[in-house]
């Protein structure tokens, strides 16, 4: 075990995008990788053959994609893309690639840089929810309700599309495009009021909640506005609070706020670890901690205690050059990765916060980093239009 061995090179570099690749995301079970670029192109790659499976322009070239996401919670054959055109589109994955038309379009009317977040569910309770497979069909608009059963309705794609389209037409006019979903098929994004976080339902394309929960009122609380724009958001279901969606949001002034949807008016806790806008947030698999990257020169590993509702710094890692555009924690909770503005991907021991590797491949700002659910692969995307695949510390199985 030579400690001086040079950092590894990517096992593959996926080229094909013609613009900065903003987000990258692995399929939960199949060897597929989804990448979205700023020219609106969504590509699906085969991570075994390292080839493009499909490529489609899902958002306008002028707007581009800022985020792509998949989750077993929304279905294995779905992928969600977020554009800077104020829409979120849900796509079906077909044999040859992506469906021609999105199964659902949510007009959020929010134009910002905050990547969406699907709900993260701890793997331990994932099975339960799947077993339960119950979805609360009756979606409450701008829910002040604190309880949302996680019933999972296995709706058909076509229905969803119809519903979404209908809703899109209606909701776009009436609600100013902010819909939020609670439960497994929800998506959390920064709202049209950029200091707010909105939860939209991916089935109905309706907004479920707004955090803080004053979005329908004319004035919002000063404290929220003082934090500035919401820059990063992560929704998750803490295992101990069965099915109550929590949202962790990072703001422009460097603060992080933990919301519990049961009480959308007041945050559970608010901490300020960073001095610059928080740009990315990741929560680990058991939802007891996470990592945050910001525009300042540090990375913070923190712990979340849902019993007491507090968030504490576990480890602060200072950087030579500021700016972390993306973070990710591997599912086994061993390593975490950050995508830096300094063109570097950095790997850390997640438990101890010690640095493990500095990966130099990209020749421009790195936008996102993501681990595959089998922990074997990592993908990083960068402004240099490439996506790099890495094999790091493979699990011993």
């Amino acid at each position, binding site marked *: 075990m030579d400690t001086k061995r040079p950092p590894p090179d990517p096992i593959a570099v996926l080229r094909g995008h013609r613009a900065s690749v903003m987000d990258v995301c692995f399929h939960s079970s199949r060897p597929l990788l989804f990448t979205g670029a700023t020219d609106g192109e969504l590509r699906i790659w085969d991570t075994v053959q390292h080839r493009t499976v499909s490529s489609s322009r899902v958002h306008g070239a002028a707007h581009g994609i800022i985020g792509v996401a998949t989750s077993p919670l929304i279905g294995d054959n779905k992928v969600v893309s977020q554009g800077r055109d104020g829409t979120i589109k849900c796509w079906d994955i077909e044999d040859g690639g992506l469906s021609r038309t999105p199964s659902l379009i949510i007009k959020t009317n929010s134009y910002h840089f905050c990547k969406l977040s699907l709900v993260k569910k701890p793997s331990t309770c994932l099975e339960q929810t799947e077993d339960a497979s119950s979805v609360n069909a009756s979606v409450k608009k701008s829910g002040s309700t604190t309880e949302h059963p996680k019933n999972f309705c296995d709706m058909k794609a076509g229905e969803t599309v119809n519903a979404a389209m209908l809703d899109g037409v209606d909701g776009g006019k009436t609600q100013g495009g902010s819909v939020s979903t609670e439960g497994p098929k929800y998506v959390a994004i920064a709202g049209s009021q950029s200091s707010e976080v909105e939860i939209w339902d991916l089935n109905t394309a309706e907004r479920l909640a707004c955090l803080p929960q004053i979005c329908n009122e004319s004035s919002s609380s000063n404290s929220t506005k003082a934090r500035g724009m919401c820059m990063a958001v992560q929704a998750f279901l803490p295992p101990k609070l069965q099915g109550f969606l929590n949202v962790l949001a990072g703001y422009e002034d460097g603060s992080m706020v933990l919301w519990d949807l049961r009480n959308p008016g007041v945050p559970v806790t608010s901490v300020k670890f960073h001095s610059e806008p928080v740009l990315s947030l990741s929560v680990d698999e058991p939802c007891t901690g996470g990592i945050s990257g910001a525009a300042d020169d540090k990375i913070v590993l923190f712990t979340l205690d849902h019993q007491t509702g507090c968030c504490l710094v576990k480890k602060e890692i200072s950087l*030579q*050059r500021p700016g972390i555009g993306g973070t990710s924690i591997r599912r086994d909770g061993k390593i975490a990765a950050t995508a830096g503005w300094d*063109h570097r991907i950095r790997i850390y021991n997640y*438990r*101890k916060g*010690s640095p*493990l590797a*500095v990966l130099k491949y990209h020749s421009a700002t790195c936008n996102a980093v993501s681990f595959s659910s089998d922990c074997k692969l990592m993908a990083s995307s960068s402004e240099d239009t490439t996506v790099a695949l890495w094999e790091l510390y493979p699990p*011993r199985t």
Partner: protein
Amino acid sequence: MEDSKRKRREIESKILEKVGEVVSAIAEAKYVDQVICALHSIAVQLFPVDSSRLLGCIDSGFRNQLLSGGISSPFERDDWWHVFYHEAAFPTLARVLIYNVALDWLACFPLSARTQVYDSFFVKGPPIEVVQAIIPALLKNGSNKDTDVNVICSNAERILVLCLLGNNGMLQMAREFGILYSSEEFTNKMLKPDMLVFISKIAQLIASIPDKARLEAPAALSSAQFFKQVIIQLLAAAEERSVEICNKGEALDQSVSDGTFLFVGETFSRICRRGFADILLAEVVPRILGHVRGCLSSNIDFINHNLFKSKTNFQFWFKMIETIKDSYAVERLSEQLLHQLATEHVTDIEAYWILWILFHRTARNQASIRSIFVDKGLLWKVFPVCCLKWILQFAVLDCPPGSDSLKKGQNTQGLRDIVQRLLGVWSTRQFVQSAAMEQQAYVTAAVGLSLEQMSKEELETTKDVMPLILQGVSCRLESPDPLVRRMASCIALVFSKVVDPKNPLYLDDNCREETINWEFGFNRQPKQISASSDRIEKADDEVKSFLSELNKGVSSVDDDRKNNNVKGRHQMFSELKLVDPDEIVDPATLNNEYSSDEEDRDDDDDASENSDSSLQPYDLSDDDADLRKKVSQLVDLVGALRKPDDPDTVERALDVAEKLVRASPDELQHLSGDLVRALLQVRCSDLTIEGEEDSAEGKRQRALVSLLVTCPFESVAAVNKLLYSPNVDISQRILMLDVMIDAAQELANATSNRPRHQQRNLISTSEQPWFLPQSKGPPGAGLWKEVSETGTSLSWSYRYERDLPLKPSQIKTGKSRRWSLRSEKMQVNQLEYSKNKFPLYAAAFMLPAMQGFDKKRHGVDLLGGDFIVLGKLIYMLGVCMKCVAMHPEAMALAPALLDMLSSRDVSHHVEAYVRRSVLFAASCILVALHPSFVASALVEGNAEISKGLEWIRTWALHVAESETDTECSMMAMTCLQLHAEMALQAS
């Protein structure tokens, strides 16, 4: 008294009578024996003659006659001798002897007779009289070349050698003068001034002997040998005399006018005047040095002036210079002395004492001698630096030196005066401009060495010193010559050390050594007079020992290496031993090693710890080399260069500038002007860390050169516009000119492949019938042959065939392919290999730059303060001219350049730097013009060219004759040579 006079007169008349007899006897003599007898008869009266030796060699008939002459008593003989030599008798007889006897009889004299009765008249006489008698005989030569004169002269020369050299004649003469001068008898008879005239007349005669001697004269009479002998004898006499005087107890100061000393001095001064001061010093220096060394070695602790004054054997040396009345001779002597001491490598202390012994009296008493050292020695002459130190120590500091450095005496007024005077000369701009480089270095050294001796207070109280230093340093720092700038920085360093020793001021990074080398690279070792072979041998030995050391060093290094190897192997072995292949390794222990430091922080269970241990970090080193933003567009480049507040960006832009420009993108043409301006205005010194300015400068310069090369017209227009702009400083102007020079040279050396215009043959012009296939093809192809049709007899087509050689590809297939429609072979045929692209752009380079160099504008004054730019400009024009050599453009551009060069302000510029560039440019013109152009211009009466070329010739001639700067005159000579060659080729 009366009695002796009367007696003397009696003897005189007797002697005259006798001489008359002898002379008449000689005149009437028929045989040689008669002559011998006659001479013998008078000789016996004067000095003892060994008659018996004569008897054997003369005829028996004359023996009686020979013996009949009475032999007088020794006392009587002495009287006779005195009267004979000091009155009129000797000159009379001598004339007969020298002319008549020598001519008619001497050849017949037997050897013993010659020595006994002929030579002895001269040898035994007083040398003063003898010399006066003989030397006029030498004068006869040259008038007519007949044998008579030759005989007389050779005899006179022989006698001179015999008397002066063989018989210690000079020593006797000096002694005689000493006696004569002090004797009362003589004082009465002859007034002292007359005596002085007499002494100098004799000295003059002596010194003229080598000149008067014929070419065939004995070697002993050649200047060097003769003077050497004379000097040895005179020195011996002088030393003897000084001891005598000391013994008599006379104070040396009073006995200035001693006859011996006067004579010695007069002779020495004449020898020095004739340019043989070195011979004199070759004798003098070892003697004094021997004395001084003796004193120094015996009294190491206590040396002062009195020690030397008390020694009797120094007395003459103290007075020697004083006796040499001729100040020119003294000057020559002192100069030669310094050079000789320098070649002898005497120590500072010895040199000081030698100078002191020789010159201290005269330097104190005579202003002219003092000024030899203080004025000429410091300001006009150029000596080695060690001599300069001695001069300063002796004439300025006026006290014995310290062990290894100059030492300051009590009285510093002299030093202050000298510093003031030196600085007055040193600081003037004219001195910098016109003095020869050696002279400048020497005066600078003098200034520096004397400044080193001053204290801060003295410096402050001495008038004008500070402003003068400032002025001198600043006008030197502007000079284009690095040597001159170094002089300035050395003086500044010395000055700053005087003012504040802890805070030395280094104007130049290069001269940071502790001791300043005042030689400035001029190693002035005069020719050695005494070839000291032992020194060469020593040097040889040193070299040998050095070599052997070197060998030892090499071998020791080898040994070390071997040892290291061995050691290394041992280490490897020992390391290898540690690893026992059979050892059972517990992986847990290995893991513990790595995870031990983690335990304190990690509270997780053991399992997770173990699993964490698999996460070994990679090499975490990181540099930001790849993070620098790359400038990849010309527009970005221009923008990046104009960000003086962002040095990193500018540096990166400079890094890529040359590459980008060389790629020659389409927009270069439109952006070149902007780019030129942006590049020129970058302040490299601001954006780079200290010590790396050069690389940034280099990049900028290369970028500009590439710009001028890839896009000449537009860029050069921009450069020329900026050249006279008031908004750029001198360094930028120089940069522009440098860039133009480089670009011109690059363009001139450029090679380019250009497809040659292909001539296509018309069908009608081709030699072969149109219906025949073309004879193109690979080399070796055979002729076309018509293939006879076997089938039908009627055929509309002709078929031809020919043999083809195998294609190379059929034998051997290569991997490389050329992506082209045409084959390589064709390209070779069609490509024209063209060199020198510069003539096309020459006018654009040169003409705008030549306009307005003589206009004084705001911030631009090429003829005045900015002369460096002018010199560089002219140099650039010269290079351009050279780059268009042998092209017709040269003919068109030469008149304009010649017009500029020949303007008086340029060609007679005060700065040598400018004159040098003018000479260079003129030479370039001569080289550049094709002789046939010149010839045709002359035939056609092209007045500009012919006038210009003629101007070059006359001007170069003028420079070669009357230039102070050596480099200038050398260049002028080369220029003349080039002119001559050109004229030869053109005619």
